[in-house]
């Protein structure tokens, strides 16, 4: 199939269908509505389940139930709705249930606004709900990347038996770009879901899906088992892209659509003879610490650019270990920074030395 032009939300929905999603449960919220709307039209054609729930809280618990029954499940929402889902997400991590959760971020806190934002970075990368857990969190910068990552994310979720978060913003949800749905994406080696409560107990013992461990010793053991997964994510499954880093004097750190704006900034700077590179985290959890080991000596400063007031900057500080000066440029409230603003910031940093 040749490339097709699709809206981000629709493209992510189709990617999920192509990845074999059995069920979608969700609740309307701007700017992700085209995703459930697309699902409502097309899941039926494939004999799959689409259901609009009464709330985000119900949606994530439907996801819990269906995932526990062994189905491939996906839900989507936007920032305030994802906040409501946190209880269920924590329970899923605790009960070791796989699912794909799409967060089309908008400005906050509270009801905030409906324009693009990356204001949920901390909520996404710190677990979000109660207890010791994390979500494998992917932050694509284009529709093609979003589609490819969603296709793979079901495998990732199944492999880790842990929810995977697709963290995009309203920009990616709303924009249209040509996408190729037939590109090969990695297939993970997955065991059968022998743990599922699938209503077919013939010839096996009963299965239980549960996150309750009343004995502190049992719960600690369970927490450590979960930690092992997160350690494996950190060790083997960091993803990032290095852009123009070879001779860079300064490096931007940015993810998602912000990184895309920064690509234009880098081109504009190049035209003015300034070498600017970029580290683009693709996984925001695990944070790609390894990318920072690859920073060449020529780089003298780091500039973190985000669509928030500075959330990822803390992770950059942790992995930078005080080596390079860290600067920040951010826009929030739903404002997408323009490439020229970032160019000015880079020049200000470089001129200041």
């Amino acid at each position, binding site marked *: 199939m040749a490339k097709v032009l699709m809206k981000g939300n629709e493209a992510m929905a189709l990617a999920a269908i192509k990845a074999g999603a*059995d*069920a979608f*449960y969700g609740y309307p919220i701007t700017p992700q509505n085209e995703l459930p709307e697309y699902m409502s039209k097309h899941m039926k054609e494939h004999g799959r*389940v689409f*259901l609009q*729930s*009464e*709330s985000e*809280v*119900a*949606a994530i*618990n*439907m*996801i*819990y*139930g*269906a*995932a*526990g*029954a062994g*189905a491939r*499940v996906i839900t989507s929402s936007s920032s305030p709705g994802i906040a409501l889902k946190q*209880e*269920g997400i924590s*329970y899923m991590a605790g*009960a070791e249930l796989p699912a794909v959760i799409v967060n089309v971020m908008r400005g906050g806190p509270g009801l905030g606004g409906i324009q693009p934002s990356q204001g949920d970075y901390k909520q996404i990368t710190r677990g979000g709900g109660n207890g010791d857990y994390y979500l494998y969190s992917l932050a694509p910068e284009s529709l093609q990347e979003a589609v490819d990552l969603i296709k793979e994310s079901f495998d990732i979720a199944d492999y880790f038996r842990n929810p995977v978060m697709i963290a995009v913003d309203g920009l990616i949800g709303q924009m249209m770009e040509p996408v190729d749905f037939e590109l090969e994406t990695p297939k993970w080696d997955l065991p059968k879901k022998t743990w599922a*409560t*699938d*209503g*077919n*107990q*013939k010839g096996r013992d*009963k*299965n*239980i*899906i*549960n*996150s*309750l461990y*009343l004995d502190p010793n049992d719960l600690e053991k369970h927490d450590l088992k979960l930690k092992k997964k997160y350690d494996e994510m950190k060790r083997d499954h960091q993803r990032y892209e290095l852009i123009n880093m070879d001779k860079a004097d300064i490096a931007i750190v940015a993810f998602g659509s912000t990184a895309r704006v920064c690509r234009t900034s880098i081109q504009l700077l190049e035209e003015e003879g300034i070498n600017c590179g970029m580290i683009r985290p693709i996984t925001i959890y695990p944070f790609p610490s390894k990318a920072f080991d690859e920073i060449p000596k020529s780089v003298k400063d780091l500039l973190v650019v985000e669509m928030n007031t500075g959330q990822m900057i803390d992770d950059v500080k942790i992995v930078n270990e005080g080596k390079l000066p860290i600067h920040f440029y951010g826009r929030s409230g739903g404002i997408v920074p323009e490439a020229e603003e970032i160019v000015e910031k880079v020049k200000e940093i470089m001129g200041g030395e």
Partner: protein
Amino acid sequence: MAKTKTIYEKSNGLSDAHLSYCPGCTHGIIHKLVAECLVELDVLDRTIGISSVGCSALNYDFFSCDMQQAAHGRAPAVATGIKRVKPDSIVFTYQGDGDLASIGIAEAIHAAHRGENVTIVFVNNAIYGMTGGQMAPTTLIGQKTTTSPDGREEAHSGLPLKISEMMATIPGATYIERVSVHNPKHVIKAKKALKKAFEIQKNKQGFTLIEFISTCPVNWGMKPKDAVDWAVDNMIPYYPLGVFKDKTNEEAN
């Protein structure tokens, strides 16, 4: 060797785990009825039960079918999620009055509203047992609890919620009945109601809820026998027993 005759056996629907209920609590009877119905309808090996939060939180260990433990109040949503992807399974939730009538009322209403083909076993003992006897939406006027130390007052907490009556008003619901297990006659009646609910589900006829009037001797501060009497004298007059909705009957007429 003397001949022995088995006159009573524990249902296969229950595991060998010890029940974690106080003496005199009727959870045990209700568990037995659920288990017996599933076995008698020959659906045990395709049943998925959902434990809620409350005294019955650990009953995923007690039933011998597949079980999922749900967050407080969310069991009907979990049931929906399962049933939609496994339409041929039998799915039931087991919820107390705190779980269903308070924190989870939205999920319960909407499962009925959508006509989900699941069965809710609703145990109403008019109090929060697990957390030590706090007031529930179903606590009676004048009833003392740890959060209504002077007895529930209408002006402060409203009138107790009648779940079966309320759920019966939902167009999507198929079968709603309130039963009690305070004596053998009513236990038999309750089982009949529960079995009917599971049969309706088996026939894919939609949403069913059976409300059980139950007791909590410890948190009510009564001996088991007195608790049963109290339920009969105080709860049943306010929460009358009977069928509140039967679409299968309406359809037949």
